[in-house]
């Protein structure tokens, strides 16, 4: 880790970290705000009549009777994944491949710091961003629910669990995005390969949910580790999932860093 580089990174990316964090909380607020108008209405009865597979595919298994489940389904099931995937991939690519592609990595590497240190600092910046956004969303989301719904809002412990696993999921996704960022000289290629892989993972997960016969597809995807409803209900294997995601992510960062420190760069 290099403090000066980390500080410069934060200066460049801090605005981004906050806009993603606060933007997500605003989306969350919108979802919570519309909850009372769809809860226990005809719409729910209508959804109940859909085929079982579709209900499962679109995260409606527990209906829309409670605010926290509605949030888990409607926000953490889709929008959150989209927002965070974009953030994780673009930031990972900006931190390494972008500098290599533009040539500004030449200045950074000319300093008497080992490449391992430089890459480690960039990875730390990425993880710090993810952590900051997760913190903003956990605290901000909970406060927003409290303000809009009144009473107890949504229970904090399950909501925290959901955000913590969400953070670890994107720790792993940012891990492979960072790996590609270290691997490719071309920024666009790193971006497209990481995006494509994420899309494939998502489609595998969706297909697995739609069809019982293709259930095995889900296990090929990183999203298998992430079940918003089960996380809220406490029925997921939280500890095992957390350890698995953390280990996979860490391994990817380390491989990326090792690769970057040995590679011939076009500078």
């Amino acid at each position, binding site marked *: 880790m290099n403090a*000066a580089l980390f*500080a*410069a990174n934060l*200066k460049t990316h801090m605005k981004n970290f906050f806009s993603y964090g606060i933007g997500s909380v605003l989306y969350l607020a919108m979802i919570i705000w519309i909850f009372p108008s769809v809860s226990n209405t005809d719409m729910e009865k209508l959804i109940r009549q859909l085929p079982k597979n579709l209900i499962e595919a679109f995260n409606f298994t527990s209906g829309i009777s409670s605010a926290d489940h509605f949030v888990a389904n409607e926000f953490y099931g889709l929008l959150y994944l989209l927002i965070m995937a974009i953030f994780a991939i673009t930031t990972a690519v900006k931190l390494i491949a972008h500098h290599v592609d533009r040539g*500004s990595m030449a*200045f950074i590497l*000319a*300093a*008497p710091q080992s490449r391992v240190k430089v890459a480690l600092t960039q990875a730390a910046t990425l993880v710090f961003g993810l952590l900051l956004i997760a913190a903003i969303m956990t605290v901000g989301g909970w406060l927003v629910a409290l303000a809009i719904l009144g009473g107890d809002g949504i229970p904090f412990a399950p909501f925290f669990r959901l955000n913590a696993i969400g953070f670890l999921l994107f720790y792993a996704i940012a891990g492979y995005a960072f790996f590609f960022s270290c691997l490719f000289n071309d920024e666009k290629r790193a971006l497209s390969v990481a995006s494509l892989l994420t899309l494939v993972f998502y489609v595998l997960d969706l297909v697995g949910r739609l069809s019982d016969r293709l259930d095995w597809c889900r296990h090929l995807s990183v999203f298998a580790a992430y079940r918003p409803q089960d996380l809220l209900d406490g029925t997921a294997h939280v500890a095992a999932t957390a350890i698995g995601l953390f280990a996979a992510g860490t391994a990817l960062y380390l491989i990326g860093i090792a690769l970057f420190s040995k590679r011939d760069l076009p500078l």
Partner: protein
Amino acid sequence: MCGHDCWRQAPLVHQRVGYLPGELAFPEGITGRAFLRLMAGMRGTRDEKRRDALLERFQLNPDIPIRKMSKGTKQKLAMVAAFMPDPAVYILDEPTSGLDPVMQKVFADLILEEKNRGKTVLMSSHSFREIEKTCDRIAIIKQGRLIAIEDIHTLQRKQRKIFEVTFGDEEAAKRAAANESFEPTRRGRTVDFVVQGDYNAFLDAIRRESVVNVSVHEQDLEDIFMDYYAGEGDVR
């Protein structure tokens, strides 16, 4: 370099080297000052006096965003970043590209000073003028291979200069052009002479006539080397 492995002990080597890239691409969205702070921070140096002296010398205002800087200003900023840590060795890739003549002079003076302080300077260039004031030895690289290393004075002697001399009248020009030893070509009152090192003989040849004007055209570096090595076969 300096007894260290350039790859495995890269940080130790970089500590002793000031580097100016040929293609300048700065990190985005920061001011010149923030960039210099980053560079100093990554080196662990806090020598603001040297930084400010260099900024003063190059007349550079570091408080504007880098993306608003002109090419010359960016070049000056990169120059300050390279010289700031006061390293033992400088590696400069086409250092004067984009600099105006005044700044080129400032740069040449700075190089001479650093040289007198015992620093090693390694720089690449396409212009003879740029390096003849500052360099001791010149190496030429062709198609990725080092083909020659020469002392600058040897090269200066080998450099062919075209003296374009205008005489008082056509008769004087004809008389001067009669001396074949400097490959004269006459156009009316003006004669081009090719001179290579033997300046005294050349001056003797023209001083009896009335000379109205003299201008000198220098060969560029590549032509000098092409001439110099013409007899030594194809370098490939």
